[in-house]
């Protein structure tokens, strides 16, 4: 048997592999093609909008606007790449690093390959096209040289965005795997989210007072950090500060290399972890009976109780669900609090949190995959299935909502609003459930069985993530009357808010869960094959 020395594997191989997986995922499924087209449509509109917006400083021929706008926009983009995968979409992990574990690839080849594949995709192309507006701006302000330098900056900026999102999701998922590290990860995410507060404060304060000098100062500082350095190259050339370019290039390149090294080390741990499997100690418990071990205390010992208990155990024991629960908790508390401290509209963000809770269920059947077959074989009726799942999740979410209402009201200095705010939250949550439950039956999709809780399969998956955004929007619009009533009615609302919210949200839930239950009764086998990974 002769072992031939293989030629070096180029990153292009990984890119081709990813495109092939994407193509195969779309083949033969009209629904997925449509969703993919919708995704592209969103991407194109984002790209065109971003391009035009970022071209404005150039078209105005105003260098000062450009010096403020470009670094700030760049920083915003980077935050988007950092947080959107964690909260909403997950990262496209169609190339799961663990699958390459047995191939004779050096770590460097693997990482560059995976990185190249990660930059191929709708979000990356959208970002690149949108930031193309900066190149145009730089060109109009400083001529072709500035344009070329800005182009380099824009490309490096994209690489930085991709590297940040990969490194952070990978590190976070590695951390979440062990139970001990889970609390650490929570704290990490909390601190990061908390850091957003001061940043917002600076931006908002500057914008409110229209103190452009302050904003310009902030922008200059950001331009010297990895956040905005890449995007301020062209304007620096246009302003005659070409000497900054090599320094900022070093800053950006060092950040990219550092992030990739971090990513590489967590990927290696993930690969080893996938091979060896989780180590859990098998302790002998006091011989409690089987039923007593399954049931969450206080629930009835029947079919419904068993379903709720199993769901509750899953929300805590399964990595993906735990990650979404933790993220929801952190976002739920920090977003409204930082908004109300900054004096922004606490009301609207509260709405957002209520609805965000509900959309965690958008792909509830995808979480456990075809284990759902057990329920089909046992013949669980659709309504029981849907209601038990909603009940189990609500047992986590409702206490959270009560906490959000209390904390936000106290932070805003209006403890008398707690009840009404809770009413709004419950209404948003109920309406969200009403919309999301039928969607979860109709638009379920298989999740890849990797250990990364943020992984999405390519093809239909990310596009269906957009559906969750639609649900979010629907729930927010549906709850707006509650906010409006609060403003119009005045003080009486402090008493009316909670009962009205309970009834409004409750009704929406009842309608949605019945619809979903009936739908499920007709589509159980179809749902099962939708969540089965092929």
């Amino acid at each position, binding site marked *: 048997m002769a072992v031939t020395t293989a030629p070096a594997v180029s990153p292009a191989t990984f890119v081709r592999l990813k495109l092939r997986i994407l193509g195969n995922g779309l083949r033969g499924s009209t629904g997925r093609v449509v969703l993919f087209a919708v995704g592209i449509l969103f991407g194109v509109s984002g790209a065109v909008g971003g391009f035009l917006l970022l071209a404005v400083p150039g078209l105005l021929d105003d260098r000062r606007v450009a010096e403020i706008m470009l670094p700030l926009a760049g920083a915003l983009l980077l935050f988007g790449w950092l947080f959107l995968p964690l909260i909403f979409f997950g990262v496209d992990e169609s190339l799961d690093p663990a699958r390459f574990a047995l191939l004779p690839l050096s770590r460097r080849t693997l990482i560059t390959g995976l990185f190249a594949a990660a930059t191929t995709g709708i979000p990356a192309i959208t970002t690149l096209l949108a930031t193309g507006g900066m190149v145009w701006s730089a060109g109009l302000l400083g001529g072709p040289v500035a344009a070329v330098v800005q182009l380099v900056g824009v490309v490096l900026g994209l690489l930085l965005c991709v590297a940040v999102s990969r490194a952070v999701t990978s590190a976070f998922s590695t951390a979440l795997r062990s139970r001990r590290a889970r609390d650490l990860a929570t704290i990490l995410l909390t601190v990061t989210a908390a850091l957003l507060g001061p940043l917002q404060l600076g931006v908002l304060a500057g914008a409110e007072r229209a103190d452009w000098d302050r904003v310009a100062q902030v922008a200059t500082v950001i331009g010297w950090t990895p956040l905005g350095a890449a995007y301020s190259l062209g304007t620096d050339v246009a302003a005659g500060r070409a000497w900054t370019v090599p320094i900022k290039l070093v800053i950006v390149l060092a950040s990219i290399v550092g992030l990739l090294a971090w990513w590489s080390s967590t990927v290696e741990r993930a690969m080893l972890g996938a091979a060896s499997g989780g180590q859990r100690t098998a*302790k002998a418990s006091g011989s409690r009976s089987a039923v007593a071990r399954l049931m969450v205390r206080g629930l009835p*010992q029947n079919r419904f109780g068993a379903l709720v208990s*199993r769901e509750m*155990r899953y929300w805590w024991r399964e990595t993906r669900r735990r990650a979404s629960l933790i993220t929801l908790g952190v976002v739920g508390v920090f977003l409204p609090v930082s908004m109300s401290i900054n004096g922004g509209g606490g009301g609207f963000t509260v709405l957002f949190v209520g609805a965000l809770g509900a959309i965690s269920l958008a792909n509830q059947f995808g979480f456990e995959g075809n284990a759902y*077959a057990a329920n089909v*074989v046992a013949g669980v009726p659709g309504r029981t299935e849907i209601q038990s799942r909603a009940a189990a999740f609500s047992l986590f979410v409702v206490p959270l909502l009560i906490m959000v209402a209390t904390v936000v009201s106290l932070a805003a200095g209006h403890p008398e609003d707690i009840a009404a705010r809770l009413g709004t939250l419950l209404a948003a949550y109920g309406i969200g459930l009403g919309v999301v439950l039928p969607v979860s039956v109709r638009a379920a999709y298989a999740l890849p069985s990797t250990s990364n809780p943020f992984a999405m399969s390519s093809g239909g998956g990310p596009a269906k993530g957009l559906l969750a955004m639609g649900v979010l929007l629907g729930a927010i619009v549906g709850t707006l009357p509650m906010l409006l009533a609060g403003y119009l009615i005045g003080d009486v609302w402090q008493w009316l808010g909670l009962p009205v919210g309970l009834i409004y949200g409750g009704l929406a839930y009842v309608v949605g869960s019945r619809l979903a239950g009936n739908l499920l009764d007709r589509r159980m086998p179809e749902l099962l094959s939708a969540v089965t990974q092929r």
Partner: protein
Amino acid sequence: MTVPLQRTPDDDVAMSLRGLVKRFDTKVAVAGVDLDVPAGSFYGVLGPNGAGKTTTLSMAVGLLRPDAGQATILGYDVWADPAAAKARLGVLPDGTRLFDRLNGAELLAYNGLLRGMAPDVIDQRARELLDVLELGVDNRTLVVDYSAGMKKKIGLACALLHGPRLLVLDEPFEAVDPVSAALIRDILQRYVTGGGTVVFSSHVMEVVEKLCSHVAILADGRIRVGGTLAEVRGDRSLEDVFVQVVGGRTSTGSELAWL
């Protein structure tokens, strides 16, 4: 007293499939399967990989909707009266994840409660099953961390828990070590002796030859041969019959010369 119309006597046919068809996109996975499983039989469904064994059994137990045809379990139509059919049926699906973030005892309790059993009955049977199958009554390991053989055994325990009259098992001996396989065989034989019916799929001839009273050979989505073991086998070995029916390819020795 009125006699239920749909119902045929128990001692007649336990499972009956009529003209089952399933297409995936353009590929026909099952092209009209007819099968009658007599009550009290130990029925082996043989076939090469991709013959349509899993697809057929999934349609028979109500996990996959057939494009055409009918499936009847102990006289109840699986697709017209699923509740009645499923109540009498125990299933071990192949390649299906269990609710594997529960431990063995929790999983059994969950399945028992889903089927409306009384908690004290569940506790007693779960303890017995875990003990007999050597899974450990007080073992707190999650099913996800079980070995392949243990997963098969806990899946089998879930299928047996409610005392069904018919067991449908997809590849029960796949990836199971010899000791566990012997144990599973033992339990299944006892179950059939007690009046139950077992239908299982496999591509391991020895197991089928040793256990089964009846055999069907499935290839390209059709039943090629079916009947009692003696009828199918004749005076040859089951393996010879299988290779001949399926149309296996014999190596000429010229390919794979670099080996």
